[in-house]
Each structure stands twice: as C-alpha cells, then as structure tokens.
C-alpha cells in the first residue's frame, strides 16, 4: 500500500468491479466464433463455383440453380414438408390439451407419471428411439410409407410443443378466467374468449418448435423411413456419402436458413409475449 502522496486522481478506466473477470469477454467472443464460423464456412462454400466442394474458386449461384433442377431433392423436400405439416399440428394439439390438463387440471392420480411421460422422448437418446421404432414397425408389419415417419415424428414433437405452451399457461393469471366468470361467462365461454386468445402465442410458438424439430430430424427418420419416404436430411446424408459437392452445401444452407428463420420468428414472438403478454 502506498503512503500519502501528492494529489493523485484515480482513473476510472483502471477500476474493475469484483464480478468483472478480465479476459472473459474475449473468451466469449471466441466461443461465439467457434459456434458460428463453421456455419458461415458452410454457407460461403455453397457459393463456390468450383466443382470440388472444398477448393474455392469463384462466387457462383450455380449450385442453387442446380438444386432447382434436382427432382430428387424436390420430392425429399416435399416429403419433409408433408411430414412436418402433419406431425407438428397433431403434436401441437395433443400438447395443448396435455398442457391444459397439467397446468389447470389440478391434482390427479398419475400426474407425476404423465409429467415423466411427456418428457420421455427428450430423455431417451435418439438412436435408441430410432431403432426401437424401427423394430416396432417391422415386427408389427406396419408399412405405411410416409405415415410411419409421421407417426414417429409426432411422438417426439409433443414435448417440444408442450414446453412453450406450458410456460405460457403458467404465466397466465388464472384470475382472468375467474374474472370472466364473474362477468357472466360460463366455463366454455371463459375458455374461448379469455384463455384461448391469451394462449395463442404460446401455441404458435409450440407449433413452430415442433415444426423445426420435425424438419431437422435425421436419425429417427433415417432408420424408420422406407424407400420413397426420403426426407431432406436423409437425402442430404446420402449425398454426403456419395461424394461431396457444393450442391450439398447449397441444400444444407437452405435447410439452415429455414430453421434459423423459424426459430427467429419464435423468439420474436416469445419476447413480445414476455413484454406484453399475460398481465398479472
């Protein structure tokens, strides 16, 4: 410690609060770089004019153009969309009903069991779910093509739709329904005019999450899909196996873009919800 000296002005830039660890901001930047640079590389290389995926030559749209002409990719994409647009809504409806029961249904026998059941698809490793479902369909001779995939997707989409809906319900003041009943609404009217509208952003969020999960699913679909039921991720896999061309980069980039856009919309919705939504 220094003894008293001529007037010294403490410079504010030297001061660092206790909780501010030096260097952590740099490490965080490094963290985000690690997270995003590969994605950026992938996207950048999709514009690579050269035929060799890894050697850069010039900027070009040709692989995207080639995508448009690729029928196989079209049917794979269409399959993905069919599956997602079927599995996600069904999962969302089931998740909504389940959330209503779990949050507003009071105590009942089997409550904990149900809670565990709903999160089960999240706990089990995907590969295990995949082979179990495969065995299930094979031994029971269920060969319904794309419907097999839809059935498998619906199940593991349920927990993803469930989480935002449950959160939205819990954030909602149950006093609102009571207030509606005080104002002469019966239970169904209260539900229809008060609960449902306030729940709608949560339901939409749940749907979007379920949709994204379904579009992106690979392992389960790989094992469960038969010939002709190829979805986009499975097709990308086969492209990677046969030989890497920038076409793979292009279709991958598109898939990435779809996911990112959907998740961003979901986030914007839920942050608006957080600020404006259910009022206490």
């Amino acid at each position, binding site marked *: 410690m220094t*003894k008293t000296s001529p007037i010294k002005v*403490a410079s504010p830039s*030297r001061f*660092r609060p206790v909780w501010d660890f030096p260097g952590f901001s740099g490490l965080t930047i490094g963290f985000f770089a690690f997270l995003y640079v590969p994605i950026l590389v992938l996207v950048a290389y999709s514009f690579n004019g050269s035929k060799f995926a890894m050697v850069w030559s010039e900027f070009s749209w040709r692989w995207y153009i080639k995508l448009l002409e690729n029928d196989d990719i079209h049917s794979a994409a269409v399959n993905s969309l069919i599956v997602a647009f079927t599995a996600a809504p069904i999962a969302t409806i089931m998740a909504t009903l389940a959330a209503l029961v779990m949050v507003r249904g009071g105590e009942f026998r089997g409550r904990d069991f149900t809670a565990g059941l709903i999160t089960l698809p999240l706990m089990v490793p995907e590969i295990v779910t995949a082979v179990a479902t495969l065995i299930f369909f094979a031994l029971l001779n269920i060969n319904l093509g794309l419907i097999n995939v839809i059935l498998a997707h619906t199940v593991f989409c349920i927990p993803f739709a469930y989480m935002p809906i449950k959160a939205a319900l819990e954030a909602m003041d149950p006093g609102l329904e009571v207030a509606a009943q005080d104002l002469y609404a019966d239970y169904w009217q209260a539900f229809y005019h008060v609960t449902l509208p306030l729940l709608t952003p949560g339901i939409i969020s749940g749907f979007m999450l379920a949709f994204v999960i379904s579009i992106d699913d690979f392992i389960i679909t790989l094992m469960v899909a038969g010939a002709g039921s190829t979805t986009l991720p499975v097709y990308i896999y086969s492209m990677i196996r046969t030989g890497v061309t920038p076409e793979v980069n292009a279709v991958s980039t598109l898939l990435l873009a779809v996911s990112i856009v959907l998740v961003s919309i979901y986030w914007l919705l839920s942050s608006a919800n957080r600020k404006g939504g259910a009022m206490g």
Partner: protein
Amino acid sequence: MDNKVAVDIANVTKVYGSGQNAVTAIKDVNLQIYDNEFLTLLGPSGCGKTTLLRMIAGFEGITSGRIILFEDEIESLPPNQRPVNTVFQHYALFPHLTVYENVAFGLRRQQKSAAEIDARCREVLALTQMEALADRKPSQMSGGQQQRVALARALAPTPKVLLLDEPLSALDLKLRQAMREELKQLQQKTGITFIFVTHDQEEALAMSDRIAVMSEGQVQQTGTPETIYERPANRFVANFIGEANLLAATCKKAGQTAWFDLALGGSLQADAAGISVGDKVTIMVRPERVRVHHGKAKAADGNNVQLAATVTDRMYLGSVVHFDLACGNQMLKACIRSETHQQLAPGETVTVDIPVDGCRIIQA
C-alpha cells in the same frame, strides 16, 4: 475518543456515465472519520451514502479524490486488499457454507493457521452469541440470526474499519431496537471504527458518536447527535432530523445580539454574530419547544414570540400529543407532553408561544 483519523475522504467525486447521461452521485465530499468511533452516514434514498460506503469498501471506483485509511491511500486498491470488511444489507451469507465456514472465510483467505482460525471464529461467534448455531446453514436461520452471522463474519478478520450497509433494515421493530444496543456495545468492546449507513434518523441518533447527514451527493453536516438535532446547519438537516418549524425572518438590527422580525409577526432577540441588517434567515423551532395555550397573547418582550393560530389537527400519540396549527399562511407543528397538554380541539383559536431559547438561526 482518539483524534487519530481512521478514514480520510478527501475531495471525493463519483460520476456515473459520461457526457449527456452523466450522473454525479458524490460531489466533492470531504469527511474525516476518527479511530474507534461509531459514525453514521445518514440521508434519504439516493443521497449517496451507500455509494460512499461502497467506495470505501472498494466495490465502486472513484472518479477523483483520495481515500486514505490510516495513512495509506486505498482508492486504487481492489476490495480484497483493503483491511476493511462489510456487513451487507441483505447479509450476502454464502448459502453453501455453514455458519462456522462463513465466519472462517476471510481468515482462510488470509491464510491464517488452522489454530488461529478456530480460536478467532469461536471468539467472534461467542461475541455475537452464535456459537450454538455454528454448524447450521444460512437458510435454516431467522433474519436476526443471519444478521449476526454477517456481523461475526465481517469482524473475524479484525478489520481496521467495519462498514455496515443498513444492516438492520430487514428486521422487525423490536429486533431492530435490540440490535441497536448490541451494535453500539460491540463497537465499544472491539474498539474498531464502525461506519454505519442508514436512512432511519432515530437509529442514527441512538447509536452514533457522530453523524454525517448527506443529501444529493454531499455532506450537509457532520456532528454529534445533539449538535445535529439542536443546531442543524441548514434547512435540509433541520427538516430531515425530527420535525421542524421553519420561520422566515429578517434581521432588523445587527450585532452580537440581533433583532429579527418574523414574517408571521413578532420579533425575537437572539445571539447571532455575523448577520447584517436586512439579511433573510430561517428561524427553526422544534415542535416540542413550542407552547400552545388558550387565551390571549401576553405582551411581547423579545424573549418569545406570541402568534395567534387555529388548531387544524390533533393526534394523540401516547406519550405526546401532536398539534397542527394554522398560523397566517403557514402550518406550524407543536408537540406537547400528554400530561401537561390542554384539551385543545380542532377549530379552536389558540396562542402559540415560541421562546427564544427554543430557536435556532439558520442561514441557508
């Protein structure tokens, strides 16, 4: 009380932000805190008292100035190098450690020997009557108990100065009053300088050797509780501590004993050096010095002022009765002991009697 200065706060300023958004929290504060004294920083929320305390502890940097601790400049030292410990407002007890481990924390960081640590912990736990709870976790204790553990923890490393940031604010009234005595005794027993922050003036008056009244980032007055209460330096201090009747007056005749004309009427003769004719001053009278009675005013003699007023409100507070009186265009307050008060009801016209020995001249 020694006259050695424990903490010298010299021209300290603290500015948050910069440019248009700059907020000056502490404006060029000068304050000297003596060794072995119990000093309270007293003021309303936002006055800067907690900021000042945190700057002494090292949690906030200072924009300019110096803080000197017993001849060592500490303003650029990080908190873990200052021999100063803090009792936090919400205790900040480590939830994952037992009481004993909480108390031992500072000692362990100072790398004292195991025997020293144990001896000191037991000593300090005994001092705060917490030995029986040494193996409990903070979540298993009441607020009052947690407060004592926080105290023990801060005392264990034998700091040169102990900082207390509104430590009693979370306790209920009876406990708070009991802790006031305990803290005062603790300070006297340990001989450590205590710097106490509170917005509760009763607390400040009861516990402190000296009080520094703060407002808007500046120290308004420093002095003993009597000085602050009886001889406030300005209107803010007069109003903040206790209640005050503030009467505008003008100097009619200057001198060692000056004459003042009150705006509400009447004149007073008071000791007031350094005031010139025509100067405007404030005359402060505490409500308990104001006398109220039925009947007409007696002849004025310069030793008291008699004013006609109407009782607007009467509040019985147990040991005293509080009156609001409308006098001219001003509201006056009177506080009269219950056994001597007259039955004065709202609406009655009364005479307010202000004796000169209950007055204090304030220039600001």
